[in-house]
């Protein structure tokens, strides 16, 4: 994996997310998520924390699995707002797709 890039959490603030690094990776969000889908959403949050832009864009489609049900945000022990983080990442990814003229395949 490339270098950790903490400018990414800063960049996410433009997409309405300021709690990226508040998360201490306890995994409550992943476990409570009704999707019961591997490490979602913590995986995305961790990628955002370490600034793995490429991973987020590669797996961008996954972000739309989120139901925006808010259970992760409700139960997050750190009040890191994982639900809003996922929404912010959606905005970030959509912004990129649109800017790059991304065509779904």
């Amino acid at each position, binding site marked *: 994996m490339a270098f*950790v890039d903490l400018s990414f959490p800063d960049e996410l603030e433009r997409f309405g997310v300021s709690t990226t*690094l*508040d998360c201490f990776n306890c995994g409550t969000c992943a476990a409570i998520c009704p999707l019961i889908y591997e490490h979602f959403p913590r995986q995305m949050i961790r990628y955002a924390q370490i600034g793995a832009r490429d991973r987020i864009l590669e797996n961008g489609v996954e972000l739309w699995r989120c139901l925006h049900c808010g259970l992760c945000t409700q139960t997050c022990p750190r009040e890191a707002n994982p639900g809003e983080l996922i929404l912010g990442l959606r905005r970030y990814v959509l912004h990129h797709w649109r800017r790059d003229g991304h065509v779904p395949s």
Partner: protein
Amino acid sequence: MEEKRNLASDGSDAPRVGIYICHCGGNISDHVDVEVLCEKAEKIPGVAVARRNMFMCSDPGQELIMEDIRSGKVNRIVVASCSPSLHEMTFRSALERAGANPYVYEHANIREQVSWVHHGEPATEKAFQLISAAAAKARLLEPLEPLRVEARRHATVIGAGIAGLRAAVDLADRGFQVALLEKTPFAGGRVARLDRLAPTGEAASEAILSLARRVMEHPAITFYPCAQVVGFDGYVGNFSLELQVEPPAAEDAVPPSNLPPAGDGEPVFVPSRGVLLGPLPTEKGRIQVETGVVVLATGFKPYTPRKGEYGYGELPEVMTLPQFIEALRDAQADGSVLMLSGRPIRSIAMIHCVGSRQIPGIHEEDASGYLNEYCSRTCCSATLFAANQVRTRYPETRVFEFYRDIRAYGRGQEELYQEAARNKVLFLRFEPEDPPRVERSDGSSGTPLVVRVKDALTFGEEVQVPADLVVLAVGMEPTGIQDLVDLMKLPVGADRFLLEVHPKLRPVELATTGLLLAGTCQAPMDVSEACNAASAAASKAASLLAKGYVQLDPFVAEVDMEKCQGTGSCVEACLADGAIELVDVVVNGETVRRARVVQALCLGCGACVAACPSGAIQVKGSTLAQFEAMVDAIASHEAA
């Protein structure tokens, strides 16, 4: 009261042994058939009664014993329970409360040496034989009177770090004369090298100064800088220490202008060194200190990483947390990027558990073959605190923390951890077998170093962190006090820290009565905990000395004048100087030489006992006859 002083203290009365067997809430009774034991014990010759209780040490348990004593049913007591180190004193005091002599008591250890190590039939059988042996000894026990020795209202504190200062101030306030000894010219110890204290953020210098001021002002405290203990002797209440004082070594030399004037001047704080409290010795000398108790506050030293451990000693950009704290303290406070030695530090990697929580087979032993398997307790919060300081003072300096577990256990510490997250510190978690690797960068990172780690939080993927600086959160090790350990015969634990008698029953006491522990010489602690330990040690010292005398166990040698032939072999054998001497006595109008014991000096070792050709000397409370009786009891039954 008068009817209480009955039977047991009356030696002429035939021994009637009471046996009291503890279940220890299953600790014993799960492995030893206590009911059978009780039945059999009652049949031992000389035994008047055998009883059992879930917890003999509890009030109802003790009451059983006391009731039997009061009613005259028994006059010798055997309790079969846990190790005597735990509760021998408990039961002796119960005897005393019931009006009996506390020394007509014998303990059988059927927990640590039976139920916890043997099981089934053999365990019960061994327990029975130990009880038989104890009963055999008990039949031969005689009432003894404790020795009472004058105690000096004086305490000595070794080490003038934060714990030593605290203990000295507390003891002086309590009305004792205090000698405060310090190896270096400075008071303050390791705390003097800190900047601010986690998690609350007060200045370390202020903390030291506030105690140092009181030390300086206090007429009861004598501060001995540059002093080492070279001689140690005596017993509680009457220790004597010999100090060697030497002028400070060249590297510790302090310009006289820096020194506070003698008497009531202000103490002077020298950053990274400590506080000067007065004049330093200018020539070599020896000082004798007579004291009642000794508080050990010898502190810790930070772990020094091996050469090459996380690049330490090989890569100049790698330093320890204590070094970093000093560097950070001295760094320019302005600017958005931390500058160290003229170099901008944009990215700091902090690695936890360096020299702590080491695991055999994974970590390398040090030169003397030791591993620090313990947690150093303070490094997590110190690291988090430093990270927060960096992030708030230098917003463009990034901090990464590589950890195994974040141990922000104390008050305000979890909050530090949260604050670090808020401050955008990135945490990476590693497994001990896959520690971070600190490497020279190939240039792609834009930093001199790169730290690679298999990050458990990123599903075990390898993550690379660019680093301008690597800070190693090194653990604590006890300071090198082997000289004191040898001199004072101090017990040391497997972790090389000084070992208390029992962490809960006697947490600040050493096995030798009158030697007390304060602070990080016992285990890693933060400033609050060290101060608490120091005050606790002071409290124990006060309990010992407040009455002006100390009671000692009467287990000393005693000469049977009838048998003594005055050969003097005992005097030769005696291991304590002058504890036994030959004196002229008149027997049947004839002046003869006979041995005499100086009780306060007698150690009770019994070297004289074996040496006496006529069997005229015994150690009270452990006579040869008693041992013979115990061996008889053990040998008389078939092994299970």
